[in-house]
């Protein structure tokens, strides 16, 4: 590697419940759930349970395919009343119940083809509760920084939205 410096951890708008930060080219979410690790593992890997929680508010998730083993593929379709269906898909790279798994997390972006990258989930027991860490490997810090600049810092997405609307007015 070019550098021996440890990547800096930068907070990216943590909330009361969820810690969000970037570290190098990784985007990390941490949240502790008040449930035993086996149960959290089940919720994340059982196709019957995934639709119960996966996706943004107001969306419905259909598990099309979910083969939880290394090399197995997965495909979820997310539906919402105000938009077309979006498919998320990828491949399981590592599966180590109940301590975690790694998969690729992909989805199609208009005109840009499939986008995304590998994502790691770590499930740790913390005094009867379970700390889940998800690490999205976005690529380089530059890419992450560029992405954060548009969407992550200070409601920048809304800014861009407003900007776009403003420009659309001509």
């Amino acid at each position: 590697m070019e550098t021996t410096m440890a990547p800096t951890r930068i907070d990216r708008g943590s909330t009361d419940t969820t810690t969000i930060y970037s570290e190098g080219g990784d985007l990390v979410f941490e949240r502790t759930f008040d449930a035993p690790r086996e149960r959290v593992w089940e919720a994340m890997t059982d196709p019957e349970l995934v639709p119960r929680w996966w996706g943004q508010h107001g969306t419905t998730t259909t598990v099309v395919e979910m083969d939880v083993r290394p090399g197995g593929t997965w495909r979820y379709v997310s539906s919402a009343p105000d938009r077309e269906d979006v498919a998320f898909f990828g491949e399981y790279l590592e599966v180590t119940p109940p301590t975690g798994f790694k998969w690729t997390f992909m989805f199609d972006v208009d005109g840009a083809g499939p986008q995304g990258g590998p994502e790691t989930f770590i499930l740790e027991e913390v005094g009867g509760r379970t700390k889940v860490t998800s690490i999205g490997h976005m690529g380089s810090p530059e890419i992450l920084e560029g992405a954060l600049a548009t969407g992550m810092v200070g409601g920048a997405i809304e800014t861009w939205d407003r900007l776009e609307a403003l420009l659309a007015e001509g």
Partner: protein
Amino acid sequence: MEADRLSVTFAALADPTRRAILARLAHGEATVNELAAPFDMSLPGISKHLKVLHRAGLIEQGRQAQWRPCRLQPKPLRGVADWVGQYRRHWEESFERLDSYLRELQDSKEQINGDDDGTDANRPR
């Protein structure tokens, strides 16, 4: 090639000067001279940044030779903002839903255990 468009946009955005240029252009079109003014930078330096932004499809420049105002093209930004915004919101909200789902499970389990105890208590021993 198409799949790499987003990478080109990301790379273009990964520079504070270029983001400042875009922010300036959000207020309306501007000439290269006007864009260079707030920065301690030579015109060729600014031109280099504009070239990167142009290649990423983030700006377009007028045709007239003398007066070539730059204009913002928000479409690629939309893709990037959507991507990161979706990603972040997705996990934030999924974790929230997972939390309430696990709590629900916990509650129903306690209820079932409670019923079992009740049944046992009614059973003659």
